[in-house]
């Protein structure tokens, strides 16, 4: 009966250990992916550490209670879990089951108290794993070094929640394309707030070796070739597949506006009209009359033409100049005729 009790205890703690570290390890694994995430986590954890530990303990306690009533399945390996699990769950690294089995085998082979030797061995293993992980990340991150350089400002929980939401918004991309112009203001605000709170000097102080130097892309100045026909076709295909029919009237109107069927509101009267010329270019068209004879009926005629053009608001300067040039060409062709007269 005692052995069965022991086995149930072990199973219970095994199950709990497996469930809680999963949640914790996932977070840490995500953090291990990008150095930026690491830093964020470190600095975020600086404040959150205490509460997180308590939370873990609570979680573990509640889950152990639950699973005491539930199945006794768990890992079949005999005595795979030591009893001193408090610190280990907080580290949150699931051990290699083979290692665990090996440890149990070693413990059973030794003459002393099996359970104790097992627990000690597993604790050692865990510590070993932790250090190897830290070394993988690139040097042990001495938090003391990091903190010594920084002065931390007090922050309200509202600010912290805003910053967290800002971080989330930083990561969320729509379809993998960042919407820079819309979110730039929000991003810059958040980043500014974030960096305000942790004032550290960029180049002062010893190196921490948290980040690995990113290798610069070798192709910096490659000329952008115009997209090939196949690229365009592919892009069109993708757009056709992903474009869903509009779910409601608003989306339909958006589509129509994009296609140009619907105008943009508030109505801009000068859509399509991009006349960059000043008023004096429209009115004072005398300079274009240089090719014409200075006296005679033609000059008279052209001055009338210019008077009419200056009052015309519908033509652009280019069109007016073209008008005058056409007349110039026409009269030059008819020059022989005019000489006879």
């Amino acid at each position, binding site marked *: 009966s005692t052995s069965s009790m022991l086995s149930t205890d072990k199973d219970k703690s095994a199950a709990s250990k497996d469930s809680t570290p999963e949640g914790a390890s996932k977070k840490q694994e995500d953090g291990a992916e990008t150095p930026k995430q690491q830093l964020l986590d470190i600095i975020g954890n600086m404040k959150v550490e205490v509460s997180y530990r308590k939370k873990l303990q609570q979680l573990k306690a509640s889950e152990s209670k639950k699973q005491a009533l539930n199945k006794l399945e768990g890992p079949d390996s005999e005595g795979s879990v030591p009893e001193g699990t408090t610190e280990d769950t907080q580290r949150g690294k699931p051990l290699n089951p083979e290692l665990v089995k090996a440890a149990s085998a070693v413990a059973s082979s030794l003459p002393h108290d099996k359970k104790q030797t097992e627990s000690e061995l597993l604790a050692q293993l865990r510590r070993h794993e932790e250090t190897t992980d830290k070394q993988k990340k690139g040097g042990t991150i001495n938090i003391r070094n990091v903190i010594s350089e920084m002065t931390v400002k007090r922050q309200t929980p509202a600010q912290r929640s805003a910053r967290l939401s800002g971080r989330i918004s930083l990561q969320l991309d729509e379809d993998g*394309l960042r919407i820079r112009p819309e979110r730039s203001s929000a991003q810059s605000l958040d980043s500014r707030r974030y960096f305000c709170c942790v004032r550290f000097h960029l180049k002062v102080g010893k190196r921490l070796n948290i980040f690995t130097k990113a290798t610069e892309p070798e*192709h910096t100045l*490659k000329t*952008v*070739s*115009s*997209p090939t026909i196949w*690229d*365009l076709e*592919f*892009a*069109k295909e*993708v*757009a*056709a597949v*992903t*474009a*869903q*029919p*509009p779910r409601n009237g608003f989306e339909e109107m958006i*589509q129509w506006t*994009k*296609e140009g069927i619907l105008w943009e509101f508030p109505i801009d009267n000068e859509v399509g009209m991009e006349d960059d010329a000043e008023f004096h270019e429209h009115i004072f068209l005398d300079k274009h009359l240089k090719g014409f004879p200075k006296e005679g*009926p*033609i000059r*008279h*005629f052209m001055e*009338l*033409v210019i008077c009419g053009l200056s009052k015309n608001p519908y033509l652009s300067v280019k069109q007016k100049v073209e*008008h005058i040039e*056409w*007349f110039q060409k*026409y009269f030059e062709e*008819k020059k022989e*005729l*005019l000489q*006879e*007269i």
Partner: protein
Amino acid sequence: MAAAALCWALRAARQVLPSPCPRQVRSYYVDWRMLRDVKRRKMAHEYADERLRINAIRKNSILPRELQEVADKEIAALPRDSCPVRIRNRCVLTSRPRGVKRRWRLSRIVFRHFADHAQMSGVQRAMW
């Protein structure tokens, strides 16, 4: 950089392409007369500037008459379909040449049909 070009192409295509939801697209004109009218309108648009300028020379009291006669001949030499007088405002749906209201470009019968089915915005049966 190829990826960037592709992204740009994707973005452009996404904005320009119509949605897969089908819309009625008319690929034929109602009849041949309407087609000819369309051709005349296009030509008139092409030659509008030239016609305007040559007419400005013709309808003149300042320039010598010989010049104006030359201009007369020139304008007569232009293709016949380029003059705007040949355009007929036909009904857009039925190609009816007569009884067409300019504002709606529809013949009276079509207009009445749509108005009675309440498909003409702001049009109501008169009663006074």
